[in-house]
Every structure is written in structure tokens, then in C-alpha cells.
């Protein structure tokens, strides 16, 4: 199922209009900082880990994206994005988002979750 051209851009544009991009970049940066702190990895290492992604992983993401058209259409809705933006102002949402991102990055980079890596998951998001 082909993704309609412009759909991804529309989501980005809506996210930008409502500051969701700025807010999520900040949270992603915090998560990345925590991963680097916990693992000793550098940005270059993370990029190299991404470079080592297997073909089936990439194809799985590709299929997911191909089927995500209806969801993206909803996500591009300004009212919804405004709501997401407001939610991202709550400390608990920020902390949870950082924790989720950190967990995902850790799994991708090290093949294990933060707790297995010896860090306290409760501290996730302190920088948020």
C-alpha cells in the first residue's frame, strides 16, 4: 500500500505549527544524553549502530509506514496536534516519553533495556 505523497510532510508541518517538533527534539536529546551517559557510547557509535540495522528491520519499518496512512492523516490534524503539544508540557508525560525513548534507543544500541544495563529506570527523564 503506497503512502500518499505529502502525508508525512503534513504531519511534520502540523507538529511544527504546534511546537511538537521542538518539544520532542528536546526530549529525544535528553534520552540520547542518558543513553550516552549509561553506556559510554558516543553519537558516532549510535549512528554506527543505526548503520548496522538489518534489512528485515528496515523492511518492517517500511511496511509499517506503508500501512500507516490513515493514522498519519489523523496525526496531521491540528486540533489533535495541539492536544499533543499541551500534553508534552506535563512533567509526567515528558518523563515517560524520555523513558520510552531511552529504552528504545538502549535496546537498539545495546540489545538490552536500561534496567538490564544497570541503570535505574526511575531516573529516566531527569533532564526533561
Amino acid at each position: 500500500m503506497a503512502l500518499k505523497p505529502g502525508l508525512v510532510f503534513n504531519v511534520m508541518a502540523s507538529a511544527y505549527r504546534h511546537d511538537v517538533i521542538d518539544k520532542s527534539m528536546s526530549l529525544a536529546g535528553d534520552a540520547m544524553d542518558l543513553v550516552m551517559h549509561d553506556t559510554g557510547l558516543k553519537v558516532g557509535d549510535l549512528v554506527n549502530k543505526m548503520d548496522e540495522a538489518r534489512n528485515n528491520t528496515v523492511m518492517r519499518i517500511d511496511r509499517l509506514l506503508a500501512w500507516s496512512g490513515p493514522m498519519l492523516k489523523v496525526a496531521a490534524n491540528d486540533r489533535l496536534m495541539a492536544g499533543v503539544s499541551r500534553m508534552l508540557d506535563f512533567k509526567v508525560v515528558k518523563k515517560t516519553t524520555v523513558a520510552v525513548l531511552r529504552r528504545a534507543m538502549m535496546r537498539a544500541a545495546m540489545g538490552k533495556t536500561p534496567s538490564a544495563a544497570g541503570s535505574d529506570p526511575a531516573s529516566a527523564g531527569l533532564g526533561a
Partner: protein
Amino acid sequence: MISDEAYRELEEAVGPENVSREPAVLDTYAWQPFANDNPERWVIRPVAVAMPGSTEEVQALVKALGRHGLKFKAFSTGWGAYSSPTSDDVVQVDLRRMDRIIDIDEKNMYTVLEPYVCGAQLQAEAMKVGLNTHIIGAGPSCSPLASATSAFGVGWDCVYMSYSGRNLLGAEWVLPDGEVLRLGTLGSDCGWFCGDGPGPSLRGIVRGSTGALSGLGIFTKAAIKLFNWPGPPRVETDGLLLDAQSEVPENVRFCMCFWPDRKNQDEAIYKINESELCYIFSRTGLGATISIAAPHLMKHLTGASTLRSMITGDLKYGCTLIMVADSDNEMAYKERVLKEIAKQYGGVIIDLAAAKPIIRMFLMNFLRSTAVPVVFRMGGQMFTALDRNDTWDTQMDWADMGVEVKQKWIDRGGILDDMADNPYMVSYEDNTWGHCEEIFQYDPRNPDHLAALEPLFVEFSLEAVERCMEPLSSTDARLRKIISPMMGHYTQWQQKISGFMDGKRTADTGMYCDEVDFDLQKVDPDIRTRFEKVIEKFSWTEDGPPE
């Protein structure tokens, strides 16, 4: 081969410890990282290498070569095959002993330096006094003097710091007969502040748009304009390339912008640059960024149709910029203007300041242009297709054309698949004019890739000529012979200048004004026919330009 007598004279000119004809030493000059398109041939080995340490030694060297019918080719920091000999009677003049920053004039914002000073050194010294230097796209290991006097000059900072040749404020020039010519105010003992006059300027002869690549002599000192740097005297940085982590100054913003389509992108870029917002500005395809940062991932992505269409479609039109400011108010103003432009043209601005590890990695890679070496990661080699610097719109036309030509050769297996959209685009002087070169990557160990290089070069050249643009011709004596008649027989004028200044033919003019026949037999017959038609249509006659 060089005679014993000639070699002895070279030793007398620069000292025996600074001359060599050892084959192993000479071969170190015969491989350069860029434009070495034939791994068997490399570039032509010089007959000897000499390393002068002063202007006087350069003069003595050049005179000695003239007496023995040998030629010289200057080499500052090197990088491309452009600093290498083009015939088998050339002595490589390696200028690495001339490595001093002679002066940084803080008040008048210029530096005087020698050939082997590299961009990174100069930038580090200039930043200490609140100044900065233009660094070319080849990276900070290259010589600012070489690009200002003799070769090309584009870089990410061109939006603020212009093109290398435009920043030349004076030069000390050893002519092919060994005499010294001092240009501009320097020639009148008035210092280094102006590169032109009194009387007619020689700037056009010194370098034109591209430079004579040592075909008219050797530049031993140059004054180069410096620019404002409102950041700290030293940007503390740990690590290199993708591992780099810099302390990001408060008054620096790093933004990625995306636009819904070409029309909105182009208009927004005109507005952004006319508003004088940028310190660094570039447009590069997202696929290109992935291909250099994560080349293995790129191979998988090329087969992922949805991701591919997102990268080459939804995220196609974008640009990257760095803004700096002297005050909080100035930065606030710039940010407001950028947001307003984004609003007007439906753009998305991603301020990377929030993503600290990312901006810490990117900052000096862009400010110092250190990211350049990673472009060789994907296949080991890359090359580029240039048109003539012109308005932003024409450069975008060139970028779009480049995608079409490249895709055809990607499909044929002639070059690596980087999703085709891989332009290196910058804006000069707040968009007075623009630059686009289409990068393609290849594996020099792959015979199919090597076989594709020449037909691809011809095809890009044809596309440029059909658009009344000049292709990357100055360094290729074959192409120069074809296009010179279409451009007022410019080579004939260059040859007259060369003949006037270099009666003994001591300079290696292979990349300046020589011409040789182009064997187009390897080229697709349709392309050849198109080329023949365009030659017939655009060539000048003795009466002048075609109707």
C-alpha cells in the same frame, strides 16, 4: 627523467635535503584522494619533487627549471588530482615549508599567509580575535591561499564569507620566468589591503572563476579577507567527525528546514538569504546525508519503497542553516524572521539546539567543514557534476536534471544508489548567486563503475552546454577543446596570456589552457549525436557568436 645537472641545480636552489627523485617519494604525490579516476594509472608521477622554503627559493627553482626545459606544478596542501602534473616532464613544487600565518590584521579584517597554512589552522587563530575564514567544501585541511589564488572556492559558509577568489586582497606571485609580481596595494608598497590596481586589475588573469591551477606561476603569499565571528575564541571540541562533541555557544542556532515543494522552497530560500540570516547555508538531499553517515543502512533503504518515496518526496526540499548573532536581540530578530518565512511558505523549521547531542556533533562539522571526508565512506570514491554558478533557480534546475541523469546510471549499475538526489548546493553572498554540484559515489574497484565515469562525465557536460552553462571543464583539456569554440574561443585568449607570461613554457598548463582531442567513441551514440548538434549550433565563427 631528470638529468643529473638539472637535479643538481634544484638542490642548489632549495638545499639538497629538500629535493627528491626517489620513486617511492614521488609516488606519494601520484595519488590524491579526489578525481583519481584510474586506480591503475593514478596521476602522472613527477620527475622530482622540490620543497622551497621562501619566495627567493621558489624564484631560483623556477629559473632552474626554465633553463632545463622542465615544468613546474605547485602543490600547497593538495586534495584533488588538480595539484598533480599533467605531463611527464614536471617537477612537483611542494610548498609545505612555507607554512606561516604572517599576519592577522584584526582591525582591517584580513590575514597574510603562506601556501601551506590550512583552513583549520587559520580559523583557529582567527577565532581568537573574533574573526573567521571561509573554508572550502574540500575541507579544513586545504590551503586558503590555494583556493583564493588558484583553484575553485565554494564552501558551506559562502552565504556569509563568499567565494575564495572574491576574498583575495593581494598576492605575491612568482611568474613562470622567475620574476616576482606583487598585486594591488602591495605592489605600491602600501600594504595588503587591496588586491586590485592601480590601473587595470589582474584578478581576472590570476584566477577567473576557477583559477589557473599553477598554470601561470606560483603564489607564495596572499592576503585574504576575514569575517566576523561572534562566538568564543575557542570552540571546545572533543572527538572527530561523527564522534565530535562541541560546546555550543549561546549565540549559535543550527536549523534544518523542510518545504512542501520546490516553488515554496525556492521562494523561502530567496527570502531567508535576502534577510541576511545565515552564517552557514546549504542544501543537500536527505538521502545524501544518510548515504554518508550510514552507508550500509542506505543500501537497505534504497529497496524500501515507502521510506524511499518519503525521503525523495516528502522530505526532498530542505536546507540546513546556522545563524549566529552579536546580541540576544539580533538572534531573537533572526529567529522571528525565520519563523515568519516558514509561516509564509508552509515550511517546517527544526531547531537542533534542543537535541543537544546532535548539535554538539554537527556544529564544527559544519562550521569547520570537517564532515567532508565521510563522503568517501559509501564507495571509496566520489565525483561531481558542475554547472556554472548562477541564480538559485538555475541551480535547482541543475539539481533536478542531475537526479534524472544519475537515476539512469544507478539503474544501469554504473554508480552507487544514493537515491539520486545528492546535490551540494550553497548560496553566495546572501543569495547574490548560487551553486550546485551533483555528487555521485562509486567504487573504484568495480569495473562497471570505472567504465561509467567517462560517459557520465560527457552526459553531464552535454546537459550543461545545452542549458548554456559551463560544465566542469577547466581541468579537462579534452572538454576544453570542445566547449571553448562555444564560449568565444576563450582558450585561445588564455593561451595568448600564457604565451606572453611564459615564453619558455615552464608552467604545467595542462589544467589551464591546453587542449587535446576528445575520443567520444565510448559514449552512447545518441549522446554523441546530441553533442555534435550542440557544437554545431553554439560554436562561434571568425565573425563572432552564432545567430
